[in-house]
């Protein structure tokens, strides 16, 4: 087909006039029959080959194109009597209310009409569609208000609509037939049309009442051949068949001079068929059905709603070369890799162009065929023919393989892929990974990249796409690969960092572990560090810090703080506690924990990213992650129930703190009962009491947390995890070991339940901690029934809260993202929308690129020191 390129300057919507319908039609349809006895389309039938062809082998009579060459042509039928178009029924009524039935003029004075015309013309010139539309509405209301025609002085006919397509005169309840209305609409002069909001150049009110009906090409309503050889027609063809049949009968009856009742019945039936042809979901009309009882899918159902053309076909894109399965963790692969099951690797392919250098290599793939890994599924020959590789064709294809052909080979290690987890809320939800082939059925991914995808392994599934051209692969690799996304654009912090075991491992390594030389070397070699010159420097006993230093580059310097740091002491980084100091690739002081290598605040990782190129940085990250895990593999790490045991003297201390707090709370309550409690500013006495009680009880719990932390054994694994930030807080241990504490419902103590009390076993207005959801036992000791009940209450509340909030906030975010999607920071730092209108005069008021900062701040001193080489 010939291609025509033109720029679309403007689009005007209008109605098809009967004249135009006939003009664009390739055929007039006169018979409801579809095929003759040989199964050949009947001339003048709905499948007429002048309307296009859907059978292979036939040629279109209009354009002589074959199937897929001919896009189809419209036809038309002449209706025996005019028919109201349902969609315009209301618009027609509007015209009836605004004009005179006798002379067809709008119910306004000539001078007035002229004034409105001028004004509307002006709006049209200004391209101000909104004002145009508003003004025509105003004019319509003016015309409607006039009860007498100013031109022929006739009294205005008041018409009602009887849904969906019948019109009744209010006076005498007499029905008005479409032919009368058609005559009326034809009488309305062009200028009057124009001021009522209908540009007569493109659409006239009388065109809303149809005298001819356009028949869509067969190509948009193809019939399908069932296995039985029977033909099943499209819903639209069925509907059109009904219309043509009834129309024929109406013609015959009219010609035979049948009584008016019969004609009217047929006319209404035709109206029904045409109405449901446009829209089969009108409330007042019973939907037209198949013989099976299932409603027909006619024109408007094809377009609207979720399954319609827009949302299903146009906005909803489907792609090939994609895979989806469950994800599972594998800390041993790099974080920019993804493990792909062999099964998937044999289905997804990469088109590889044959060159003289890879000819022999590709031959091996073809020899393996589609059923052995690594094989190939198709070969595209130089004349663009696709050949399937099968055991029979295999040898011939190998022999004929020449430079320039394309082999669609199976995925192999190192191929480029795009990996995605829905909901794709931000840039990091779709990243590029290199492929690693594994047995099994799940995608493997490094747990370090769970955070940007927001993935976990409780059954999450993810999607994988294979870019099919070299351009796409190069683009994905350079723009979307995981290592290009380490720093989050929203705050300039690293989103990828060590998680759980890796943090614990490095913490233990740098804090307490030391090992013999051979073990240290073995450990380092196992994670891929092979630096003999460094190993030679090891003494007989190697400290953990030295092992960690061995993976760092020799020119790396770093000053940071661990979680131990109190936030104020300033001192020599080499000696002061809380400092983490690396000098020339050698760790001098401190321990590694979540503050230096964790996700979100890994200062060490960020410095590496800033100092070195991506390849080095990724390599380093991989080593850091793997070292942490390897240390834990070697050492072993477990938590046990005795982690939550307390020494007798600690237990006494804890009990004392609890009892002191409870008696103090009792004091508050009795003060309150006596009326001696002084209200705090802006609070009632009751609220003051509540605040004081909550404050006291929370303080007691925090104090117990501290006691537990201080008294616990340094080998206590639960404490170790909490201290290095790998998992859990000290509070969680305190809840297990000592006391669960106050249960809060919406920020308050428990109040709900019975009248003035929480449970029937308490006295009314009992304000004591025990009656308001205070749990003084620990998880380990066990809760009593009342405590258990309160605990279940808050548990259920938070469960419901998350279940209800997630979809709400998700939709909120979606709307926000859609509203802001074309905002852009321009080169002059202004934030502008798609019209180049200014939204903010300087991005964030300071014009700073947040992704280049540390959580919104820039440490100028550090930069100066860096430049001066200090």
């Amino acid at each position, binding site marked *: 087909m010939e291609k025509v390129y033109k720029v679309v300057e403007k689009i005007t919507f209008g109605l098809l006039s009967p004249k135009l319908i006939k003009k664009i039609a390739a055929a007039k349809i006169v018979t409801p029959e579809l095929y003759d006895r040989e199964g050949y389309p009947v001339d003048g039938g709905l499948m007429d080959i002048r309307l296009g062809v859907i059978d292979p082998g036939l040629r279109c009579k209009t354009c002589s194109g074959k199937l897929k060459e001919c896009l189809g042509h419209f036809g038309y039928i002449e209706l025996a009597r005019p028919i109201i178009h349902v969609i315009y029924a209301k618009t027609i009524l509007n015209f009836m209310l605004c004009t005179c039935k006798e002379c067809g003029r709008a119910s306004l004075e000539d001078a007035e009409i002229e004034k409105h015309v001028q004004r509307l013309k002006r709006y049209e010139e200004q391209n101000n569609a909104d004002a145009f539309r508003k003004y025509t509405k105003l004019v319509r209301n003016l015309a409607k208000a006039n009860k007498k025609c100013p031109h022929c002085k006739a009294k205005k006919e008041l018409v009602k609509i009887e849904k969906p397509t019948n019109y009744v005169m209010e006076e005498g309840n007499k029905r008005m037939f479409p032919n009368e209305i058609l005559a009326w609409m034809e009488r309305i002069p062009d200028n009057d049309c124009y001021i009522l909001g209908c540009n007569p150049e493109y659409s006239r009110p009388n065109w809303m009442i149809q005298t001819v009906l356009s028949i869509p090409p067969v190509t948009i309503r193809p019939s399908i051949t069932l296995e039985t050889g029977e033909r099943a027609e499209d819903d639209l063809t069925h509907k059109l068949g009904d219309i043509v049949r009834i129309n024929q009968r109406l013609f015959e009856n009219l010609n035979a001079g049948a009584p008016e009742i019969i004609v009217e019945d047929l006319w209404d039936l035709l109206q029904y068929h045409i109405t449901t042809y446009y829209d089969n979901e009108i409330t007042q009309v019973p939907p037209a059905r198949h013989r099976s009882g299932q409603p027909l899918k006619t024109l408007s159902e094809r377009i609207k709603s979720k399954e319609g053309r827009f949302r299903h076909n146009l906005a909803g894109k489907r792609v090939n070369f994609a895979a989806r399965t469950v994800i599972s963790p594998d800390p041993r692969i790099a974080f920019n890799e993804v493990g792909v099951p062999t099964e998937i690797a044999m289905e997804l392919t990469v088109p590889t162009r044959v060159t003289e250098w890879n000819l022999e290599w590709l031959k091996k793939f073809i020899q393996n065929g589609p059923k052995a890994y690594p094989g190939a599924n198709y070969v595209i020959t130089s004349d663009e023919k696709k050949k399937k590789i099968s055991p029979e064709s295999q040898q011939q294809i190998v022999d004929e393989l020449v430079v320039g052909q394309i082999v669609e080979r199976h995925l192999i290690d190192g191929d480029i892929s795009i990996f995605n987890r829905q909901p794709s809320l931000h840039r990091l939800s779709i990243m590029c990974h290199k492929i690693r082939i594994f047995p099994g059925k799940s995608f493997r991914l490094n747990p370090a990249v769970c955070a940007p995808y927001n993935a976990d392994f409780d059954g999450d599934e993810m999607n994988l796409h294979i870019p099919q051209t070299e351009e796409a692969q190069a683009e994905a690799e350079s723009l979307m690969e995981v290592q290009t996304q380490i720093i989050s654009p929203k705050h300039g912090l690293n989103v990828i960092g060590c998680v759980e075991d890796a943090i614990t491992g490095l913490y233990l390594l740098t804090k307490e572990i030391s090992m013999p030389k051979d073990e240290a070397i073995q450990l380092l070699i196992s994670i891929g560090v092979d630096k003999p010159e460094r190993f030679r420097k090891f003494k007989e006993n190697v400290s953990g810090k030295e092992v960690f230093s061995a993976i760092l580059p020799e020119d790396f310097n770093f000053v940071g703080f661990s979680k131990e740091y109190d936030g104020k002491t300033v001192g020599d980084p080499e000696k002061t506690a809380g400092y983490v100091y690396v000098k020339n690739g050698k760790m001098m002081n401190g321990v590694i924990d979540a503050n230096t290598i964790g996700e979100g605040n890994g200062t060490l990782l960020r410095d590496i990213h800033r100092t070195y190129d991506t390849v080095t940085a990724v390599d380093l990250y991989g080593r850091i992650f793997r070292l942490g895990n390897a240390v834990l593999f070697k050492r072993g790490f477990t938590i046990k129930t005795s982690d939550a045991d307390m020494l007798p003297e600690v237990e006494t201390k804890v009990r004392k703190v609890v009892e002191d707090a409870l008696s103090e709370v009792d004091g508050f309550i009795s003060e309150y009962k006596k009326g001696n409690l002084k209200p705090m500013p802006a609070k009632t006495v009751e609220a003051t009491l509540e605040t004081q009680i909550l404050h006291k009880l929370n303080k007691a719990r925090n104090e117990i947390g501290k006691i537990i932390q201080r008294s616990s054994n340094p080998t206590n694994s639960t404490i170790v995890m909490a201290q290095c930030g790998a998992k859990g807080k000290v509070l969680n241990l305190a809840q297990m070991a000592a006391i669960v504490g106050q249960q809060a419902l919406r920020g308050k103590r428990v109040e709900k339940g019975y009248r003035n009390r929480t449970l029937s076993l308490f006295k009314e207005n009992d304000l004591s901690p025990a009656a308001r959801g205070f749990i003084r036992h620990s998880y380990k000791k066990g809760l009593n029934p009342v405590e258990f009940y309160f605990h279940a209450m808050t548990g259920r509340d938070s469960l419901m809260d998350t279940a209800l909030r997630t979809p709400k906030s998700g939709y909120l975010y979606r709307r926000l993202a859609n509203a802001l999607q074309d905002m852009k920071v321009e080169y*002059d730092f*202004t934030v*502008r929308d798609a*019209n*180049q*209108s*200014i*939204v903010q*005069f*300087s991005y*964030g*008021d*300071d014009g*700073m690129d947040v992704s280049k900062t540390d959580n*919104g701040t820039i440490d100028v001193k550090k930069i100066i020191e860096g430049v001066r080489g200090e």
Partner: protein
Amino acid sequence: MASEKYDVAKHVLVPKHTKLSEEESQKVLDKFNVTARQLPKISKTDPTIKELDTKPGDVIEIERKSPTVEKTKFYRVVSSA
């Protein structure tokens, strides 16, 4: 207070609004290389500019506090609606 209407522009939370002269507003438009239509709008009936004697098309300069920079200047053009 009862007879006089309260001027919201004097409230502590309302940033300082000033009307720019022809030349000043032209300078602003030139600085950002925009037409008046591309600036954010402010209604001519907005209480904060009631005392400023403005007409549609005037540019209002607003001096706001900002969490990132102490003070910032914002410009809005008076719209007829």
